[in-house]
C-alpha cells in the first residue's frame, strides 16, 4: 500500500507530506527554544546583577563558530541545488562539507566547554552558566541530530537517488530545513549569550 503525496505534490495544498510534517516539527521547536528564551529573560531581569557574556565566554571562538555554522548552511543549500541540477557528485561534496562543518562546530564547542570546566565553571556555579550550558547543550544535541540526518543522506540514504530522484531531492531539502533552523537558533543564541 502506498501513502499518497509522499513524493508527489498534492494539487490544492501544493505540498508533499514531508514538507508539511517538517514545518510542523519546526513549529514545535520554535516553542521549545522560545520557552527557554523566555525563561532566560525572566531569570535575567529578576537577577540583581548579571554578568556580560564576554566577561566569561570566549567571543572570538564563538564568532568563528558562527561563521562555521553559516557556511554550513550555504553548503547545505548548495547540496540541495546540486541535486536539482541533477549532479549527484557535487551533492556529495557539498553534503560532505556540511557534515564536516557541523563537526568543526562541535569540536570548538567541546574546547569551550572543557575550558569552562577546567576553570571550575559549572552549570551549578550561577544562573548565567546554567542557562548557557542548557541552551548551548540543547543546541548541540540538535547539531548532532542534524549531522546524523545529513550523514544518512550522504551515505546509505543516497540509494534513493537512483530509484526516485524527486523524492530524494525533497528529502534532502527537508533535512536542509532542519539544518538551517539549527543555524537560525544559533544566530539568536550567539548575541544573547556571548555579547549582551
Amino acid at each position, binding site marked *: *500500500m*502506498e*501513502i*499518497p*503525496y509522499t*513524493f508527489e505534490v*498534492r494539487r490544492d*495544498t501544493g*505540498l508533499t*507530506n514531508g514538507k*508539511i*510534517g517538517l514545518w*510542523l*516539527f519546526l*513549529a*514545535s*521547536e520554535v*516553542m*521549545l*527554544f*522560545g*520557552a*527557554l528564551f523566555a*525563561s532566560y529573560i*525572566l*531569570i535575567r531581569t*529578576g*537577577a540583581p546583577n548579571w554578568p556580560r557574556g564576554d566577561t566569561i565566554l570566549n567571543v572570538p571562538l564563538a564568532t568563528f563558530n558562527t561563521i562555521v555554522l553559516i557556511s554550513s548552511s550555504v553548503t547545505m543549500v548548495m547540496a540541495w541545488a546540486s541535486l536539482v541540477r541533477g549532479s549527484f557528485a557535487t551533492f556529495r561534496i557539498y553534503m560532505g562539507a556540511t557534515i564536516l562543518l557541523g563537526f568543526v562546530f562541535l569540536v570548538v564547542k567541546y574546547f569551550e566547554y572543557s575550558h569552562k570546566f577546567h576553570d571550575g565553571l*559549572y*552549570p*551549578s*556555579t*550561577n*544562573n548565567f552558566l*546554567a*542557562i548557557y*550550558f*542548557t541552551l548551548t547543550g*540543547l543546541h548541540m544535541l540538535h547539531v548532532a541530530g542534524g549531522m546524523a540526518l545529513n550523514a544518512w543522506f550522504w551515505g546509505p540514504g543516497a*540509494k534513493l537517488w537512483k*530509484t*526516485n530522484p524527486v523524492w530524494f531531492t525533497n528529502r534532502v531539502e527537508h533535512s536542509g530545513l532542519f539544518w538551517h533552523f539549527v543555524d537560525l537558533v544559533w544566530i539568536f543564541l550567539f548575541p544573547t549569550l556571548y555579547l549582551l
Partner: protein
Amino acid sequence: MTQPGAVTAPQPHVAHQSHHEELGFWRQYVFSVDHKVIGIQYAITGLLFLLFGFSLMMLMRWQLAYPGAALPLVGNLFGEARMPGGTMLPEFYNELGAMHGTIMVFLGVVPLAVGGFGNFVVPLQIGAPDMAFPRLNMASYWFFFLGGVTMLASFFVPGGAAQSGWTSYTPLSVLAGTGQTMWLIGMLFLITSSLLGAVNFITTIIQLRVRGLTFMRFPFFVWTQLVTSFLLLLAFPPLQAAAIMQMMDRVAGTSFFMPSGLVVSGQVLTAAGGGNPLLWQHLFWFLAHPEVYVLILPAMGIVAEVIANNTRKPLWGYRSMVYSLMFLGFMSFLVWAHHMFMTGMGTAMAAFFQTTTMIISIPSVVILTALLISLWGGSIRFNTPMLFALGFLPMFGIGGLTGLPLGFNVSDIPLHDTYYVIGHFHYVVAPGTIFALFAGVYYWYPKATGRKMNETLGKIHFFGSLVCMNVIFMPMFLMGLAGVSRRLFDGGETYAFAQPVLHLNVVSSWGAWILAIFQIPFIFNFFWSIWKGEKTDENPWQATTLEWAAPSPPPHGNFLEPPQAYRGPYEYSVPGAARDYTPQHEA
C-alpha cells in the same frame, strides 16, 4: 507495501485487495505500522492505564474514608515501607496521588482519546489508506510505551515514585527523591510521543483527505482532532523546556527554579539560587491549560458523532461549532495564569486572565448548546453509545459551570486547592470525558471487530457508572465549600471545621468502590464480544461518515475502492431520500 527499490508506479485500485502479503506476528500485531493496529494498541494500553490509575485512587479512598485504619485483605501487600501493618503512610499517599493524576491524564485519557480513537478513526473518516507517516506513528506509540514503563518503574526506585503532585511544583519537586527524576524522564518520552503524533495527525488530515472532502465536510470528530493536535504541538514544548530545566536543577545542581536562601528543615540550601519557582508554574500551566482541552475536545468530537447518528438528524449549528472549536484552540493559550491567582498576582494581571477565562467559556458553551439543541425533535435511538453521549452532556455541563467561580479571582481565592476544585475538574474528565470515551468504544467497536458489544451489559455499565460518578464527585463540592483542602492524606480529619463534612468522605469512597464493580460488565463485554458479539455488516448504525464505507474490520489500506466525498458529514433524514441517511460517499 511495494518492494524496496521498486520504482513506485501508481498502482491501480484493485491492487489494494490483491496484495495479501504475509507479515509475521511481530510485524503485524506488535511493531505494526498500520494505523488501525496502532490505534488499538494505544486504546488498550490507555484503558489499562485508566484501570491502574483508578486502582491507585481506590487505595487512596480507603485512607480518606477511614484515616489510619488498616486496609483489610490487601493492605499487607505493599510492604513495611509503605503500609506498615496495612496502614498507609503519608509518603505513600502522596505517591499514589501524584501518580493517579499523571497516569490518568498523560497515560490514560490522552492516549485513548488521541492515540486510540484519533489513530483508528481519523484516517478512516477522511478516506485515507493510512496515516501520512506510518513509521513515525509506530514510533509515537513506542515512545508512549516507554514513557509508561518509566512511570511504572518509578514505583520501584528507592523512595518510590514522584510525590509532588501531577503538577510537580518547584522547589518541592527539585528537592524530592529519585522518583521525580523518573517522572521527568517519563514525561520527556510522553512529550516526544505526543509531538510526533501531532505532526502526523495534522499532516494526515490536511494531505490525505479524499477527493471532495473539503474542510467544511469534515466530521466534527476530525475537526476536534485537528485542533487538539495543534494544541499538543505548540503547548507541549514549553513543558519540555521546563522538564529539561527541572532535570538540570535536580541533576546538574542549577537553580532555574530555586530562589536564593531557601531554608529547608532549618538548613539554608547550598544551591546558587537566583531562580524563580513561579517560572515552573508558568511553563507548566502554559501546557496544562491547553492540555485540558486536549482531554475534552476529542470527547466532544465523539459525542457529536454519536448524537448525530442516533438522533438521525444533522448536527445543529455545525459551522458555529467548528468556529467555536478554532476559537477555543486559539484562546486556550491565553488563560493559563488563572491557575495562579494565589501566587501574589497583581490586580491588573488577575483582571486580564479572568477576562480571557470568561471569554473562553463562551465557545465551550456554544458547542455544548449546539449538541443539546441537536437533540430537539429527533427520534432518538437509546443504544449504549447514545446513553453515554447523553450522560456526557449534563456531566460536562456541571463540570463547566462549576469552573466559572474558579475563573474569577475573588471566588477562586477561597476555593483554590480545595476539594471543590477536585470535584469541578473530575466532573469534566471522569463522567465527562471518560463517558464520551466509553461512547466511542461502544460506537466504533463494530468497525474494529465486525461485532457489536452486548447492549444489556452496556446499559448496566452505563446506569451503574452514572449513579456512582455522582455519588463520588458531588460530595466533593460540599467538602470543598466547607473548606477542606485537597491533597490531605487524612482527608481533613485533624481540622475542626472539617468535622461536619467528614462523613462525606465515606460516601465518596463507597461510590468509587462500587463504580469499580460496575466496570466489570464492561471488561467482560469487551472481551466476550470479540468472539460472541452479534455479527454486523460494515455499517451497523446506518451512519453517514466515511469510516462506515470500509469493511469491518477494514483491511490493510482500509478501503476496497478509494472513496470520494459528495456531501456533508451528517445528511440524516434528508427529505425525499429513500432511507433516513445518505452516506458521504454516495454520489
